[in-house]
C-alpha cells in the first residue's frame, strides 16, 4: 500500500460532492468534494506500490481534458490506468448531468 498526494491547477468548480466506484479487486472509488482551494488536491491510497509516475500521467491527462476544481479522495485496489480513468470520468459526468 502506498499513499500519494498530487495538486493540479484547475478551473471548473464543482457544486456538490460526488462518489463513484467500489474498492473491489482491480477497482477504486473516487470522491470529489467542493473546495475553497485554488487548485485541486488529490489524496490517493493505492494497493499497488511503485505506480506514482503512472498516477501522475493519468491525472495530468485527466486534468488536461477535464480541469475540475475539487478535493479528491481516491481509494484504489489495484486498478489499471484504464479503470482509473473510467472512474474519474464517470465522476465528472455525474457532476455534469446533475
Amino acid at each position, binding site marked *: 500500500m502506498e499513499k500519494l498526494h498530487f495538486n493540479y491547477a484547475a478551473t471548473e468548480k464543482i457544486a456538490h460532492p460526488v462518489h463513484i466506484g467500489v474498492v473491489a479487486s482491480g477497482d477504486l472509488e473516487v470522491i470529489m468534494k467542493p473546495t475553497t482551494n485554488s487548485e485541486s488536491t488529490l489524496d490517493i491510497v493505492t494497493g499497488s506500490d*511503485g505506480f506514482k509516475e503512472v498516477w501522475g500521467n493519468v491525472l495530468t491527462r485527466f486534468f488536461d481534458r477535464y480541469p475540475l476544481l475539487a478535493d479528491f479522495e481516491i481509494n484504489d485496489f489495484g486498478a489499471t490506468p484504464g479503470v482509473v480513468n473510467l472512474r474519474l470520468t464517470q465522476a465528472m459526468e455525474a457532476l455534469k448531468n446533475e
Partner: protein
Amino acid sequence: MRSLWIFPGQGGQHAGMLKDVDPALREHVEQMLDLKLLDTDVAYQDSVQLQVGIELLQVSQINSLKASGLKPSLVAGHSLGVFAAAYAIGSLQQDDLFPLVKRRAELMQGAYPEGYGMGVVVGMSRKQVEDLVAQVHSDEHPVYASNQNSEDQTALSGELAAIDQVVKLAKDHGATIAMRLKVPVPSHSPLMADVATKLSALLESVPLTKPNGIYLANNTGHAVRQVPQVEADLSGNLAHPVYFEAMMAVAHDYQPDSIVNFSPGRPFRKVLGQKFGDLHQVNLDQMSVSDVEFLLNKWERGTN
C-alpha cells in the same frame, strides 16, 4: 495423469520440517554423509544442514508418492530443487543425490566472503532490470540479473554494494518492490563459475540415465529429455540464472492436468496462478501425502 512436480529451493525451510520424513531414509542419509541433521532454525543457518535437509524432505516425499503409484510427467526444480527433480524423473539415483548436494553446499559456503549476495526487483521487465544492471556492473563491482521467477520478478546477484545501487535505481524507475534478499552468496551468476566447474567434475563420475519424462532445465528454461542437458543443468545451474518463468511457460504448453508442489514453503503461488489459472494443484507443505494421493486419484477419476 499428466502431473507437473515442482521442487523449490531454499527459503521455505523451518524447524521441524523433517518430522514426517521416513526415519529409515533419514538414518541412511545421515550415515552415508556422516552428518547429523538437527532440523532446527539454528542448524538451518548452515548451508550443509539446510541443503541436505531440504533434499531429504523432497526425496522422502517423492518416495511416498511413488509408493502410492504416482509419478510425474514433468519435473521442475528451482536451484537446489533440480536434484530432487532429476531424481523424481529417474535421471539421478537416490544415493548419488545426497553426496552431490552436500558437496554443493560446502562449495557454496566457502565460495564468497562477506559482501556478496542477492536482491530482487519486482514490477519491471527483465529487459528493464538488465538495463539498470548494465549501468552499475563493473569488474570491480559485479552485479548480474539472475533468476526470473515470474514475468515481473527478476533477482540480482553480485556484490552487495552494487546490488544496493541497482535497487535504488529500480525504485526510482517504478519498481513495486526492490530489495536485498537474505542470501549470503551471489548464486546463479557467473561469480559462481568456479563452484560449477568443481561440481561438474564431481558429476562426471555419477551415472545419469535418460529422464522418464520431461525435465525442465533451470539454465535455459527449456524442456529437455536427454542426459547431457540434465547433467549440464545439475552442474551448472549455480552459474546461470534460473529461468523459472520460462520453465513454467513451457510446462504450460505440455498441458499438465495437475501440479504437485513439494515442500518446503510454497514460493511459486503467484507465477503458477498466472500461468496455470485454476488448474488442480496440491501442496505437500499443507497436505499430507495421503491427502495428495486422495486428490490426484479423485481428479483422475474425473469426479470433480
